[in-house]
């Protein structure tokens, strides 16, 4: 090592600083919390259950004549040009009567002119269509199912790809609606039901044992801008760390939170929210804007979440929380969902990995 003077060291430091000046804007951008992106979701609609809707239309068209003929002939068996077998049942016939007693697997399409009862523990690999009511008994496994009116899914039964009912889907305890389930009016899931994608004007996750109305404070105090938050002047509050909205307060800004966000009891957030950490919403709170959460989201009881909501982690909700509204459907997407009985959603729900209806706990969720 060759000795150099102090001024040479000074020059070295200064030269290093000057050389790294172009990194200044990049470092500043790196440290600035990201903006809340414009929230755009695919609106709940035909996109998600396109397969089921197409299949409903095609089945009705393709089998219209055969259904009419089956009223006279009873049962019609045949095959499509690609070799797929089908069976058309009249309104008076039952599927169980036309299956061997030991049959556990059905590899043909089943089309019923009216009601269709799928026996328990039967595995159906092909499309199942009921012009009126479809009843799937316990432990049966269906791949594709269509119901012209309502579908009743028994305990521990499983739908593997899609299920479409023109009016209502009722799933008993332990049923699994994997893939996409859509209904024209309502989907009702019992406790311990598992789900992935669901699309309906009303989706009820069980029924609350002790229902109560949401308690809203008479007057909400507007929250002041906290110390660790800066406001660029365009209606956003940008917080680099954690942010807490006190109980009974309201916020009319769009929030961008670099850490976690805690929304107190009865608080109201009117703007969009982008949280890079976890989002904890205490009971009786109301969030009216879009929500993007890069961590986990925990919602208390009786909250009102308008949405749309996109959670990168787990979404868990206490009882009787409501997503969306009858007037404005919403979309809720999370990697995992655990919703207590009593929750209601309007629009579309998508648990990307796993969704489950949790039995209601006795204590109030905080």
């Amino acid at each position, binding site marked *: *090592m*060759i000795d*150099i003077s102090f001024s040479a060291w000074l*020059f*070295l430091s200064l030269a290093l600083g000057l050389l790294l*000046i*172009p*990194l200044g804007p990049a470092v500043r951008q790196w440290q600035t919390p990201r903006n809340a992106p*414009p929230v755009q979701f695919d609106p709940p609609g035909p996109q998600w259950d396109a397969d089921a809707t197409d299949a409903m239309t095609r089945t009705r068209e393709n089998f219209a004549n055969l259904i009419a003929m089956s009223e006279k002939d009873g049962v019609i068996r045949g095959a499509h040009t690609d070799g797929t077998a089908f069976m058309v049942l009249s309104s008076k016939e039952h599927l169980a009567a036309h299956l061997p007693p030991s049959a556990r697997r059905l590899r043909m399409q089943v089309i019923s002119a009216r009601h269709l009862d799928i026996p328990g523990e039967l595995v159906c690999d092909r499309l199942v269509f009921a012009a009126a009511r479809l009843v799937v008994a316990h432990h049966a496994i269906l791949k594709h199912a269509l119901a012209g009116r309502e579908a009743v899914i028994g305990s521990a039964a499983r739908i593997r790809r899609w299920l479409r009912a023109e009016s209502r889907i009722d799933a008993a305890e332990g049923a699994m609606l994997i893939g996409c389930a859509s209904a024209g009016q309502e989907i009702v899931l019992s406790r311990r039901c598992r789900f992935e994608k669901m699309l309906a004007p009303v989706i009820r996750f069980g029924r609350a044992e002790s229902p109560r109305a949401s308690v809203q404070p008479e007057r909400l105090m507007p929250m002041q801008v906290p110390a660790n938050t800066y406001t660029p002047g365009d209606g*956003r509050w940008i917080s680099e760390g954690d942010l807490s909205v006190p109980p009974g307060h309201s916020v009319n800004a769009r929030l961008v939170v670099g850490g976690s966000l805690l929304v107190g009891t009865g608080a109201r957030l009117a703007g969009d929210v982008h949280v890079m950490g976890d989002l904890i919403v205490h009971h009786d709170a109301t969030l009216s804007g879009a929500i993007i959460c890069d961590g986990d989201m925990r919602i208390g009881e009786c909250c009102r979440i308008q949405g749309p909501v996109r959670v990168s982690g787990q979404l868990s909700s206490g009882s009787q929380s409501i997503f969306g509204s009858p007037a404005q459907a919403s979309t809720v997407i999370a990697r995992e969902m655990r919703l207590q009985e009593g929750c209601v959603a309007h629009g579309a729900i998508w648990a990307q990995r796993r969704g489950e209806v949790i039995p209601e706990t006795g204590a109030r969720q905080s």
Partner: protein
Amino acid sequence: MKQAIPVEADHPPSLRRRLFSSNRRARRKTIHLPDHATRVLQALVLGTICLFALILSVGAITQLACFLIDGVIYRFGLPLQLTTQPFGAGHLLSFQRIALTASMPPPDSFALTLHAIFTGGIFFMSWAARSRPWRSGLQMLCVVHGITLLMCALPGAQLPFDLAQHTRTLADLSVILLLSTPLVLASGYYIVERSWLNRIAATTLILIYQISALPLKLLVHALLVTQLSSATIPLLFFAAGPALDVLLLSALYGWVITWKMPDDKDVSAT
């Protein structure tokens, strides 16, 4: 395009002649270049002009760098010597190849041991880095430095490069980067950016940065090598050589493309 006027049978000959010539002019199609083609042409022209200007002035730029380096060495009493080698004398592209030398002994075992301990420590601590690119990058640099230390530790071995070669290579690469700047800007920035003021200001800023950074960069590298040891030459080349130059230029480019003219519409969504 002017509409052609139909010639009627009862038009007098003089009118017919005028109409024929007028219609012939109307039939000639006027070529309007679309907006993006205009900007591509502008980019090509500006890029070419910048490139030729740089080629003609690169000799002066390297002379200026030599002058600055000499001044700093003298002012701060640095233990460095400046050597130059002419390149392309008599040609359009001619400049001085700059190198810095220092008389320093090869690294001793104490220095090598210290380096090895430090490198090993950084390597193991890098496993704690959460970001994989940072972790892999640090570990790669540790491996490079470790191999160099091994080479220096072998009895009778000598590194195949010295400070002069290192600084000369850095200087040459900086000149190449400087000359390729107009091409890079012409292929992207000049096409996207509509404002002439922004184009010229951005080009000037980037070129001034590169020209002023050249002597500073060589001096910093040379001083670090004299202070740490010649075994750090490969490490400095990988970590703080052309890769860092490209990173800094990218950062500068990333900043200049965010410049807006006052009448530009804000198209950000939030």
